[in-house]
Every structure is written in structure tokens, then in C-alpha cells.
């Protein structure tokens, strides 16, 4: 067992965990943050994407101990005071989700794209989403949503309050 202290969606947690525990397991099983989901066992699908110190990571590809002392944001931490993050709003307004299983990962990755490309081209968006699989939407509306979110002020920020939404 190893002791870690992690900030997740603004709250601090201290836990003794098995060193082999993945961050995604820690989020889902220890913290009940089940908004972040698991879609594969080979780090291909991106469903588990969260932000670690402000950049996207696949949480099935990170050990929970590696998050020690760091700051994690999940899909559950984006909306502040009932106000959606611009990326969440763009997904809704552009019908960028159907079953919604890939959506948490897509939204978190969409935000990350805007950090590198505040005014992304379609090509940059498509390449930025390459590590996230969706079986429902054919990506068309997800690409549209990320492009639409880019037009909102501070869409690359990690909370809707910081984004001025």
C-alpha cells in the first residue's frame, strides 16, 4: 500500500492504495467518480481521458501513484455552479453525442486540443481526437462541436467559471 494525496475536481483526497492501481480505477472505485469510464484494455479508446495538471491523459494509462501531489480534473469537475463548460455546451448544441459513452473522454480531449490550437483547423481537430474512439457519431458532429467551442471565450480553461461561461 502506498499513500497518495490527490486533488480531484477541486477536492483533496488522501488514500492508501495498491501501487498497481490505475488512476481510472482509483477515480471510479475509490472516489466514485464514475463519470470517467473504461472502454478498452489497450489504451486505444480514450474513454477514460481526464486532465492531469491541466493536460489530457488516458487515466487507464497512468498509475494512481503517479497522480500523487497533482491535480486531476474529470468530466464531473468541468461545470461549475450548474454552468456548463463551453465544450460541454458545444457538444450539446452540435449533437456531438449519441450513447454518450465516449463523451467524457471526447470533451476532455476537445479542451486539450484548444490549449495547443486556440483556433483549430478541421485537420488539427481530427488529429487531436485521434486517440479517442466513438462508434456512434461518425465524428462529424464532434469535430463541429470542438470547432464551435473554440469560438467561446476561454474554452481551453478547465472550469466553466474560469472560462467565463
Amino acid at each position, binding site marked *: 500500500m502506498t499513500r497518495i494525496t490527490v486533488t480531484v475536481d477541486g477536492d483533496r483526497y488522501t488514500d492508501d492504495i495498491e501501487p498497481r492501481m490505475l488512476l481510472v*480505477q482509483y477515480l*471510479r*472505485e475509490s472516489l*466514485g*467518480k*464514475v*463519470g*470517467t*469510464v*473504461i*472502454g*478498452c*484494455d*489497450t489504451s*486505444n*479508446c480514450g*474513454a477514460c481521458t481526464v486532465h492531469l495538471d491541466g493536460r489530457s491523459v488516458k487515466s487507464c494509462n497512468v498509475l494512481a501513484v503517479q497522480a500523487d501531489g497533482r491535480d486531476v480534473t*474529470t*468530466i*464531473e469537475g*468541468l*461545470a461549475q455552479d450548474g454552468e*456548463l463548460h463551453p465544450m*460541454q455546451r458545444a*457538444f*450539446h*448544441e452540435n*449533437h456531438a*453525442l*449519441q*450513447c*454518450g*459513452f*465516449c*463523451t*467524457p473522454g471526447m*470533451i476532455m480531449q476537445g479542451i486539450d486540443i484548444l490549449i495547443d490550437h486556440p483556433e483549430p483547423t*478541421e485537420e488539427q*481537430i*481530427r*488529429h487531436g*481526437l*485521434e*486517440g*479517442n*474512439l*466513438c*462508434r*456512434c*457519431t*461518425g*465524428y*462529424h*458532429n*464532434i*469535430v*463541429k462541436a470542438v470547432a464551435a467551442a473554440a469560438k467561446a471565450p476561454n474554452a481551453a480553461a478547465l472550469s466553466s467559471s474560469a472560462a467565463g461561461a
Partner: protein
Amino acid sequence: MTTVDDRPSAEIGNRRLRKEDQRLITGRTKWTDNITLPGMVHLAMVRSPFAHARITSIDTSAAKEAANVIAVYTAADFPDGMGACANAWPITPEQVTPDHLPMVGERVACAGEIVAVVVARTAAQARDAAELVDVDYDVLPAVLDGLEAMKDEVLAHPDKGTNKSAFWKLDSAEAGTGGNVEEAIAAAREDGIVIKREYRQQRLIPAFMEPRSTVVDPTGEQVTMWTATQIPHILRFLIAATTGMPESKIRVIAPDVGGGFGGKLQTTPEEFITLAVARRLGKPAKYTETRSESLVSAHHGRDQYQKLTLSATKDGTVTGLKVELVANLGAYVAIVGGGVPVLGAWMFNAIYKFPAYQFNCQTVLTNTAWVDAYRGAGRPEATFGIERIMDELAAEVGVDPLAIREKNWIKHEEFPFTSVAGMTYDSGNYEAATARAKELFGYDELRAEQAARRESGDPVQLGIGVSTFTEMCGLAPSRVLGSLSYGAGGWESASIRMLPTGKVEVITGTSPHGQGHETAWSQIVADRLGVPFEDVEVLHGDTQVAYKGLDTYGSRSLVVGGEAVVRAADKVIEKAKAFAAHLLEANADDLEFSGGRFGVKGTDQGIGITDIALATFASHNYPEGLEPGIDADATFDPDDFSFPHGTHLCAMEVDTETGQTRMRKYVCVDDIGNVINPLIVEGQVHGGLVQGIAQALWEEAVYDENGTLVTGSFVDYTLPTAADTISFVTENTTSPSTTNTLGTKGVGEAGTIASTPAVVNSIVDALRPLGIHDIVMPCTPERVWKAIQSAGSHDGETTTEAQPHFDEAAPNNADPGSTGEGNAQ
């Protein structure tokens, strides 16, 4: 009564943003795997690594000793069984249908089959201990391929004595729906065109994004099962029917379900095992599959060998079509596994006026994962075959592929049209959809560019692919299903509860998993009852709430389930009218219902339907002889199918030096009748297109010679990413369906059905001058490159040699006509 002033006059037809999004975009989801119950135990399955083997011993002692392991069970621990994975559609009375038990004790018939289950306090502990279960196998010879299976040399189930499961035939001369196909082919051999082609529909994996998961709580009066399924109602019925549990003691809930595409249209071994373990231990139990397990053991789709013989006059007027299929069902005949290829019987003739037609389908058993519905289910396979061979006919006649289609398709004024397969197409306008698609595509300009590139010998050639599809949707008229020996009906149910506070609950027997029924059904009810969209709550997917239903698949939900909602709403209005007359002291005949209000004609007197709901709640004053309440139930059984159609056009650049393909443009104009929500329709089309395109270009489930799935993870089973795909141009034309009052047709499968042949046709079109007339799917750069190389090396020799398909000796290659002929004449 609530009034919303800015409410549009009609909800139907609006691009309403979806109600279901809010939870999904904020992570407040209810996936089955999210559920945790007090004392819950976790399951891990021990699966066979071999395709076919006898189990000689299973030693569970080490696993039982492992930390926090509660139990390890094999089939021997359940002498009365655990239920069974039933086949609901025996396509013939003689069908060979091996027993499909959730866990096997003696012999495994495919890799991934479950031989033991480990129960532990955590999923990780269960998985670790599963590694410690020691199973000894005697490996048996395995048959994997459909054509190999036809030889009956190696048997998938030796006790059955054959791999052939069933043979199903439709012949237009015998059925009285058309002429004799052999005569048509013979006549064309004398003086016409006969084209024979063999196509391969490779095996695919549905690959829904949410892995399957089941939680069973046995501690209540009803045993509750939450499961990632498309079919909670059918599952409940089949649990009762195969385990002997009283149906009334079973509650099945499909909470948030992350995609299905047919892949969750199944009753699975894992569901039965989780149920059995939970009941044995008296504790809640959970099983969630890994992705690798999902790819290996959730059912696969497609896997057909198709042999087509088309006859035509010299000018390209079709005279006959003969279809011979070998469909690989895998190790067991799954819930509708045998029936899926048979659905092609009514689809190969497609939109064309074939005077003579014959469809033959042989299903076979092999030692592979069982095969069942995958988006389109039988219809993409058929559409692929016919749309590919129509291009061959165009090439043979020397005309544009659209011209050959137009020459042979059903004209707008000929609807309703009874096809040579005996189906009545309700409505359609192929001319309008095609004209609009050509315009959006810039068809003539792209053809000009293609000619210029050919002319200049550009290493990057341009191909234009066409697909003018139709499909039958709205499964299904119950009497038709009965005549096909299908084990259930095709009706759908709906209930509407008018709550005293003016809110409305709609209960539907459909079970959405991404389709947006909550939004669309709300739009329908808002219009019908004149209540605000926001005041309608749609409930589904829980057999305790929606006690009656036949669930979601086959593009049936809107055309059957939506119609049931309409009928329930009409009953509510009818019931409310008597109360309105009473309360208004008017004659019911003098009442008009519009905008949610009963008005007395010629006066300004009136009462809102939600006020009536409140009045019936109090029931202080209501008509003599009536029950208080205006809630209503309806069950709708369609009289006929509906037939959406569309024209899909694909422009593809093919690099003749590398075999690389690049999609330039994809346009589709689909006619799906009246549209409830264009936003949802577009989404369905986009997603469908990419699944169909993926079959053409990337996806294939591959087994090695030992029957091990080589494409057993997302590293090898290559789903397309955003970087592989493009943005699409989609539009609609509208020929309202005549088989339901909303005038709607299905859309869930249209994109998948149409796009695969459009893409392959585009690649073949680019390379046809090289003498190439087919590339086996998926058309990877390697396959395209090899086709170009072998075409080049043959230097213009016959395409039969350039594109060898199947072994000449293979049964599927037997001559379908009376004499042996070459390919095109």
C-alpha cells in the same frame, strides 16, 4: 395549465436539442458498471483459448485458495443448468441448432467460450484468480471458414453429423411473384448479358463503446438484473423461459446503455452466469467484460460468401437475379443468427424491377464466435452484392452506373410497388433523391476530373462510387413474423400517464441506447397533446416501469414504437373528450381539440387537457358510468414494412503507386419519409456512414488457423478514428411512409447499408481501366496495391485471373446455371 408563448407551432420537424444530453455531458451517468451494491461480489470468466476441444479436467483448487476469492464454479456445480442462450428464429423446421449453454463442461466449440467462473470481492482479485484455474483440454480439429464448413470434413459439432444448419430459398416462380430465373439466365446466355460475381462479406465486430456489464441483485422479492442490453423485455422473457424462474419474479433494467448496433441484441452467457451466481450466493454480483473479452466473445456480424448471377438484355435491362449465400453462423445459432442472412431475401432485388429472382441461403456452423445482427443485419450484405453487380452491368454495357440504375429502378409513379420478392414498397422517389445527390456532389464536374486524370495518366486516379439503396425497416408485422417461424411478434407498446400537475409521462416499450427516443417521443407527444416539450418525461428500459415491449433494433423504434405513442395519445384525447363535455356541459360532438385544449365550437368556452387531468385526479365531478382517469395504453402492430431509400455518392482518390486511398467527398440524400428531428436524423446517418465505410476500408475480424482471434483488441481491430474520416454532406428528400400515421421510415441503419458498396464502387471505378473489377474488403492500401500489381502483371488479361476470389473447387463456386460460363460475356 402552463403556457409557453415562444413554443413553435409544431414540435415535429424541429431540430430540438436532446433531453438526454445533460447527464451524459456532465458525467452523471448510469452505466451498469457504475452500480455498486452492499456486499456485491465480482465475477471473472475462465474462457477457452481453443476453438474446439474436449475438456478433460478442471482444477479450481488454487483459485479457490487465492485471497478474497469467494467461490469458483464450473458447469458441474449447476447440475440443473443456468438457463440457455435461445435461438428465437429457426429458419426451417429441420434447422440444426446445437444447444447453447452459458457454461460448458465437456466440449468447447469456439475460443472464448466460458468453462468456469471465479467470484471474488473485487474484479481485480477475480481476474487474478481466474488465471489460477487449471483446465486441461484435448484439442479437436476446428473448422473456421464458411466454405470449408460446407465440405463437412471437419465438424464444428461432431455429434450433429454436419455443419449445415439450414437451407432457405425464395423463388419468384414458385412464389408466384415473378418468372423463372433459370430461364431468364438461359435466355440471356443466348442473346444478352450474364454476369457472375462472387463477393465476400467479411466478418465484423459491432464494437459498441460500452463493454457489456451485468449486475444482479437477488435480495429483493423480484431478482433485479441491470444489464447493458438492447432487449430488456426479450431477455426477461427468455430468462423465465429457460431457467424456469417465474417471469413475475424477474425485473430487467437497461440503464444507460453505451451503444449496441445489434451487438447487444442477444441474451448472453455472461448474463445467465451472473444471475446463477448471484442466486446461488444470495448476494449482488457484477460482471463487466474487458474489451478483449468483448471482441472475442460478444457476437460478430456479417461473414457471408455471396455468389450472384445477373441476367440482362444487351441494352442493360435486367431480366433475372440469382443469389446463393453461404452464411457462417459461428459455433451456435444465436438469437436471430440464422434469420439475419435470410433478411437479404427481400433486399437483393433492391430498387430494381427484376422479372425473375431466386434467393438461396445456406447457413453453416463453425468453431468461431457466433454471428448475429450487426447494424443493418442482412440488408447491408444484400445491398452490397446488388450495388456492386449493378456497377459491373454498367461497365459491361458501357454506360454510367447511374444510368443503368435509372433504366431499371422503380419509377416514382409506380409506387406502391410489389417487388419480385413479394414485398410492397410503400413510397419512394429515386429520381428526386438521385438528382439532388448529383447536384450536391458536383457529379458531372467530378466525372470530368476523373476523365482528365485518366487522360493524363495521373498516378492518383479518381473514382466515383454510387449506391442507390433501399431497405425494409420497422420490424415487423407480427403475422409476417409468424409465417417465418420467428419466435415473437413485432408490435410495440406505449402508455401515457396524465399526471395531476399537468406533467406527462410516456412509457415506451422501446429501449434506446443513443438514439434519442426521449427527445423524439417528447416532440411527438407535445404536438399530439398540445403540452410543452419540457413537460413530457419518457420512461423506458425497466420491465417494472415499461412492463411490455419488444425493444430496439432493426430501425423499428420510431416506425413501430413511435406509432404506438401516437395511438396512446389519441386514446388519451378520446377519453378526455367525455370529461371535457361533462365539465363544459357541452355535447361531445361540439368539441374541438387543438393546442392542448377542448373548445366548444363557435364559443370561447374551453378546457385544457391538463386541467382535465387534474379534475380526474380529484374526481369530484365526472361523468356517470366512466372511470376517473384519462391515462391510456396502446399496442401497435404494423400492417407492413416501410422502405426508406437514398442515393449515396462517394469520390475517392486512389494512389496507384502506393494503394493509398483518400476520400474526397461523400454525399448522401436519404428519403426516410417524414422527419421528427432532423438533428437526430443527421447524427444517425453520420454514424451509420462511418460504420459502413469502415467495413469497406478497415475492419475485419480475423482468426488464425487455430481459431484464435487475431484481431482481439483495439490495436488490431481497427475502428476508424476522427483522423481517418471526413465531414459528410447529408440531405433528405421526403416521400412519407404510408404504413404509419406519422409518415416516418427508419433511419438507424440506412447509412451503414448504403455506404459500403458506394466506397468499394468508388475504388473499383478508379481502377477499372486497369482491368480491376473487384477488391475484397476491407480495401486496405495493401490489398489495393496488390490488385494493381497483379492487374499490371497480367497486362490486360481477363479480370477473372487478375482477381481470383475463391477456390474454384469450393462449393460456393459451383455453377449456378445449367452450363458453365465465364464471368462476363
